[in-house]
């Protein structure tokens, strides 16, 4: 869910690895970011629209990744996927490091680009 720079890159990579990938984005113009040889399905709509999720086969999905720019949207969609539809691996992007820590504790696999970015900026400065 979320076909921005990160979402499209991850989707392209998983697709190349041979996984069956479905990309959801509220804005279908974002699908241009996907690689030209992307085999997966593209669905325009909201990642917490239950009807859309069901039509995407959420109940059979092995993994769900919420990678939009909205922390709360990502959390809602992730918890719907995990708790209502039983998806086992749920990855959630959270800009806010505190919420990333909290929802990691609550069972989501979270990461915070803020933490990662700060770390990279610091190492770039420190490296000779």
């Amino acid at each position, binding site marked *: 869910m979320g076909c921005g720079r990160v979402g499209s890159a991850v989707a392209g990579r998983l697709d190349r690895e041979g996984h069956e990938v479905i990309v959801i984005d509220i804005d279908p113009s974002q699908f241009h970011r996907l690689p030209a040889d992307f085999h997966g399905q593209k669905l325009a709509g909201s990642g*917490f629209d*239950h009807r859309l999720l069901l039509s995407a086969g959420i109940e059979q999905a092995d993994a769900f990744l919420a990678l939009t720019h*909205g*922390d*709360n*949207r990502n*959390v*809602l*969609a992730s*918890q*719907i996927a995990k*708790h*209502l539809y039983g998806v086992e691996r749920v990855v959630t992007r959270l800009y*806010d490091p*505190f*919420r990333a820590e*909290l*929802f990691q*504790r*609550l069972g989501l696999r979270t990461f915070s680009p803020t933490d990662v970015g700060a770390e990279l900026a610091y190492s770039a400065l420190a490296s000779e």
Partner: protein
Amino acid sequence: MYIIVVGGGAVGSGLARELIASPDHEVVLIEESGARANELRAELGEMVVHGDGTEVVVLGAAGAGRADLLIAVTADDGRNLVACEVGKHWFHIARTIARVDDQRNEGLFRMLGIDATVSAAAAVLAQLETSLPEHTVVPLMRLQGSGLEVVDLHVQEGSDAAGKAIRDLQLPRQTVISLVIGLDGAPRIPSGDTVLQNGDELIAVIAQGAESELRRLFATPLAPESDAVERGG
């Protein structure tokens, strides 16, 4: 009680106004839009905090660490859910209440430990129903956890229920008629022998989902279909 309200729209600001009227409550209202927060601060004063009420830092500054209750009533289910979860699991606020607009999320919210949910759509619907002249069953309150709800019933002319004693009615399982208000406006606690009259109003506890069965008992039956054109069409 120390209460944090997240979301300063019509619902949140109305709620905050109600709550501060009680001297027992200390209330903080968190609103994300700066312009709206200024507007609210002009009316309600320092209790209005400008910020994102789903953020740990903002909630912390609003005193979430000592709050007894958090109520999230923005127009966004995701925000409301996250505000409550942060309140509950980060700040250990004893009670959290969320507004839920998409009814399919209600179960999720409860599964995730949100203590109560309120649905604007359901409330509007209930109000509309009471305004309809022919209403028979109006949901008043859901009793969460038990699968029961409190409803207002109207005995209509010619219905199955009119003129019958309560014990002779084929009520759906778990239905308890707790109060009968006659046309004279006097409330009475009914017994099995109480005979229901046209126009009586009843307050009852019923199983969620039993509305349509009750409607059949209490509504004026539809005129028999004698019109051949209608039947044929």
